[in-house]
């Protein structure tokens, strides 16, 4: 008798566990920049981010990690398979234990909004700034600007 009861209890518990695990299969993405918020705890399928330790994709149940964003393209795949690309200049990525992901960028824009010609102009402007930079600090700043502009041109193309 008690055995049957136990079994029933276990079955119920298993079902509940499975349910709760199904819940955490969802990945909640917060993708925000100082200028705009793109996703606020929205459920998505996959996110690809460029980081200084290499670009990587994040799916649900990804191991918790921290990363620093590199200038480049963040790609978000919605649950219905639609892909959206955003250009980010810099920022941070946090993947938490509960499968929530925070992508915070200093500035982010939809790739479709970028004007290729203007991005190229920016790149040449900063390249000339880099070659004419006097001290180390100005040089480093110009080098960062060139890196961002290069990524911008690449994203726009």
């Amino acid at each position, binding site marked *: 008798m008690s055995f049957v009861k136990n079994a029933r209890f276990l079955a119920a518990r298993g079902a509940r566990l499975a349910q709760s695990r199904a819940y955490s299969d969802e990945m909640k993405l917060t993708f*925000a920049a100082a*200028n705009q918020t793109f996703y*606020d705890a929205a459920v998505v399928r996959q996110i690809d981010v460029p980081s*200084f330790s290499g670009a990587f994709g994040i799916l649900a149940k990804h*191991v918790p990690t921290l990363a620093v964003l590199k200038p480049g393209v963040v790609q978000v795949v919605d649950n219905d398979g639609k892909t959206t690309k955003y250009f980010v200049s*810099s920022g*941070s990525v946090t993947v*938490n234990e509960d499968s929530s992901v925070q992508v*915070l960028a*200093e500035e982010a824009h939809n790739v479709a909004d970028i004007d290729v010609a203007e991005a190229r102009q920016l790149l040449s402007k900063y390249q000339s700034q880099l070659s004419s930079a006097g001290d180390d600090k100005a040089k480093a700043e110009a080098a960062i600007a060139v890196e961002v502009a290069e990524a911008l041109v690449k994203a726009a193309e």
Partner: protein
Amino acid sequence: MMMQRTTLLLPMAIEATMLAQQQRGMATLKTISMRLKSVKNIQKITQSMKMVSAAKYARAERDLKAARPYGIGAQQFFEKTEIVPDEKAEPKKLFIAVTSDRGLCGAVHTGVARLIRGEMATEHANTKIFCVGDKSRAILARLYGKNILMVANEIGRLPPTFLDASKIAHEVLNTGYEYTEGKIVYNKFRSVVSYQCSTLPIYGGPTVEKSEKLATYDSLDSDVIKSYLEFSLASLIFYTMKEGACSEQSSRMTAMDNASKNAGEMIDKLTLTFNRTRQAVITRELIEIISGAAALT
């Protein structure tokens, strides 16, 4: 500015009343009308200040709405890792007071300063303050002048940007003061009529590295953690500045509305006194004329 003006005005006012007592009737009328005029001017100023801050508030609220998910996202990591400061090591605290340069906005800045003062009262040997905005410095410098690490001013004229925040974060990290834990003290905006003085915790790199929960996070080195913390400090400051700016504008709006109302009441009272005095002067002149005429006949 206001203080200077009152000290300047006071001797003048006393002189005027003395003159008024000498010449009686007419001069009192004159002083009342002068005061009436100045109160009316002040009301005009407070009214226009209210209009200006209403416009600024609308923008600040819109900005805040966009920045809130960003700020909440930036806090997530600290909430989920449950970092506790190392008890063995000597605690070095840092307070970042987020205020602005501008006054006339109720208790927004004093609230922030009061919270810090309360914390400093218990322990202030190993604590430093970073003032964002002149107002917090003005209030805190008197008691804890030696604890102030740095002051950032020219805050509040324009809406805060991420560049401002990153400059402040840069300076916080460049001062050479290696804090183990700290708090950002700011006003959290709730609605047009309410805000709450709140704090956000911040931690130094070594404190985060020693945290137990950090072991669950994959592939971390101290470089990544350092960059991550630097960026999250800038994000948190950006978010708190947005909250602070919105609270400040809404509070200024209410303060100026109240000031206009008070000025209105004063104008009503003064107008009444003015009319009554004028009537008294006329009556007295009539009596003088009549009794003079009566004496002649």
